[in-house]
């Protein structure tokens, strides 16, 4: 069974996300609906036996590279999340097929936003390389 990483980004995908206000400015009932949906996604994946991992990342980002011999690492705080392609979190799923991974990603993208309508958030679907011999 192939594993897929379903990545959520802060700012968008092939095109920017729909311009919704940040969640703390939604109506309280819309916040509840959104969080209940996320909760149900994890439960659904677990119940299906497809869940491997799910994590959220804080929006703070630091770029780091080797500074050279006897030099401190070079670090820079990344650009603001709004202007940068920043990973917000992921689900890792273990599924039957690529098609199933796409189906799940589309379902995750239907998460309710302000007013209850879908957020249409782009999900980045990446297959995890496996250590198993490929079947040819």
């Amino acid at each position, binding site marked *: 069974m192939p594993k897929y990483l379903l990545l959520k980004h802060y700012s968008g995908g092939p095109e920017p996300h729909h311009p919704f206000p940040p969640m703390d400015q939604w109506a309280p009932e819309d*916040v509840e609906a959104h969080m209940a949906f996320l909760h149900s996604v994890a439960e659904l994946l677990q119940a299906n036996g497809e869940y491997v991992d799910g994590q*959220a990342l804080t929006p703070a980002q630091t770029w780091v590279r080797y500074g050279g011999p006897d030099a401190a690492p070079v670090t820079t705080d990344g650009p603001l999340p709004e202007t940068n392609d920043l990973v917000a979190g992921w689900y890792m799923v273990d599924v039957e097929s690529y098609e199933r991974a796409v189906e799940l990603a589309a379902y995750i993208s239907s998460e309710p936003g302000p007013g209850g309508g879908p957020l249409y958030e782009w999900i980045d679907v990446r297959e995890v390389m496996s250590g198993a011999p490929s079947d040819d």
Partner: protein
Amino acid sequence: MIDESTRRLDEGALRALVPRVLAGLVRRGEDFDAAEDALQEALLEALRVWPEHPPRDPRAWLATVATRRLVDARRSEAARHRREEETQAEPLPAATEEGDDTLFLLFCCCHPELAPASQVALALRAVGGLTTREIADAFYVPEATMAQRISRAKRTLRGRRLDQPGDLAVVLRVLYLVYTAGHAGRVDLAREAIRLARQLTLATEEPEARGLLALMLLNHARLPARFDSEGRIVTLDRQNRQLWDRREIAEGVRVLQSALAVERPGRYQVEAAIAALHDDAASAEETDWPQILAWYDDLVALSDDPVRQDPAAVLGRAVAVGHVVGAAAGLRETDRLREVIGERHRWHAVRGHLHELGDDLNAAAAAYAEAARLATNVAERDHLIRQAARARAAGLRSSA
């Protein structure tokens, strides 16, 4: 065929023996590292053998089997390194330190050369008797990572003379770290920390050890009310107090009183006293804030420079000031902390609470939103977003 309940019983009894047997081996002069490995093997052997052939004296059985493993290990080691010169061939003389084995072992595990994460892992394994797998699960890291962390910690201790009494303050801090590490994993670390703290109070008269146990009990008593059925955080002022564990509160208060009677106050005793006052209130409105503020004054007075050395105490005191004097006064108290913890989510969350107390809902919403942005715990982040949305909606309603 062993049923699950017998197996669990055996494991519980086994775990209680771990620190005593291990301390015996280490006191005799065995290396901590080797002794711990040998005892783990003996424990596995016990789980296999005991159900069919229960020993007459389980502790002696474990000590004997572990000793046999140590001898075996030394023989094969000797065979491998026959040509190497052994500089430390003689085992260290047995330590003469008197006192309880648990305390002795906790001091070993909390050796100042170990990083806090290693101290915690080692204490859970050597004193708590948890398996590497269980500790790994509790901290959500792969088992191999935790195994490596533990074996590195043990290597650090190798060859050290573990006969000097360590710093009790470090031991207390490690236990508190275990307690706060969470209740979510398969292993209830909070319960484990309470068990260890209880053992510790039997081994030392130090009132801070009892203060720590009381603090844990008085906080743990509220756990059943701290999350709703959906896993959402419920803040103290909204908790259903019927769900609090009255028995645990009563024990916490008893332990705290016996500590305070010694009249050597310390931070854990003071924090426990504050927790007890919260536990004592029949409703949020009946909370005795003036007395809580008085205890916070004591807590802050324990540091020379509380803003830098103990900002959490100053922040807690600011909340009490907000309830006793008024929201604006509480906010002024938090201003002193801006430079030190102004980038931490808790600072913003407290300011949100104080703004709300002063009916400035828009400022509260902004502070909660900033706190959510800085939070590193998912449940807390979600809670803060809800608080922000709720305060904002209420602010819009009241200004409309």
